[in-house]
């Protein structure tokens, strides 16, 4: 079975400051890694995903995440946040083969303050 741990339930940060949202996972098999974002009153949207190849993946709105196999981590970072980045962020994993469901962490609420 897989599990995902997001240690920080809330992360307050000032606008234009850098931010890191932590994600660690546990799995006995190889997995794909995802970050989803949920804006207020909206559905989950895929932010970025790691499938293979370069361990650093980027989104179109300036977020990036780095897959670290030895530390089983997939932390999400942004060098300068905006008010509009305020949302709930979920890390998720999925097995390469077999069960196709996503396993999510409990989420991190990013609160960007002016």
């Amino acid at each position: 079975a897989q599990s995902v741990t997001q240690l920080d339930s809330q992360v307050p940060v000032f606008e234009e400051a850098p931010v890191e949202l932590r994600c660690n996972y546990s799995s006995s098999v190889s997995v794909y890694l995802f970050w989803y974002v949920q804006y207020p009153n909206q559905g989950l949207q895929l932010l970025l995903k790691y499938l293979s190849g370069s361990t650093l993946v980027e989104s179109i709105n300036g977020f990036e995440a780095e897959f670290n196999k030895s530390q089983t981590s997939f932390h999400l970072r942004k060098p300068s946040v905006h008010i509009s980045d305020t949302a709930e962020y979920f890390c998720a994993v999925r097995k390469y083969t077999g069960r196709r469901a996503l396993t999510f962490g409990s989420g991190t609420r990013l609160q960007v303050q002016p």
Partner: protein
Amino acid sequence: GAGVSQSPRYKVAKRGQDVALRCDPISGHVSLFWYQQALGQGPEFLTYFQNEAQLDKSGLPSDRFFAERPEGSVSTLKIQRTQQEDSAVYLCASSPLAGGGADTQYFGPGTRLTVL
């Protein structure tokens, strides 16, 4: 194009009532998933369809939960004799392919169920 839609967006039920939640996936998507998201938690898997076949229902919490997708498109999640612990947001997701874990899942806005 249109995304995944769900109806109703909000549902209030009295304990013991039956409810039916609808999901309209993106047209042509083969795979459909249902998740349950309790307050303050991440979504948890309930069940998975590939076309009309329910290939995985390991996440359904009890036999009061039932899902169907009879024509391989629209899906309905039914909860019988609702209990207070069923209160949650029910999310539907679809993906275009049938195989491969790299397939992106596209989520609907969810149905918030409150059981009084």
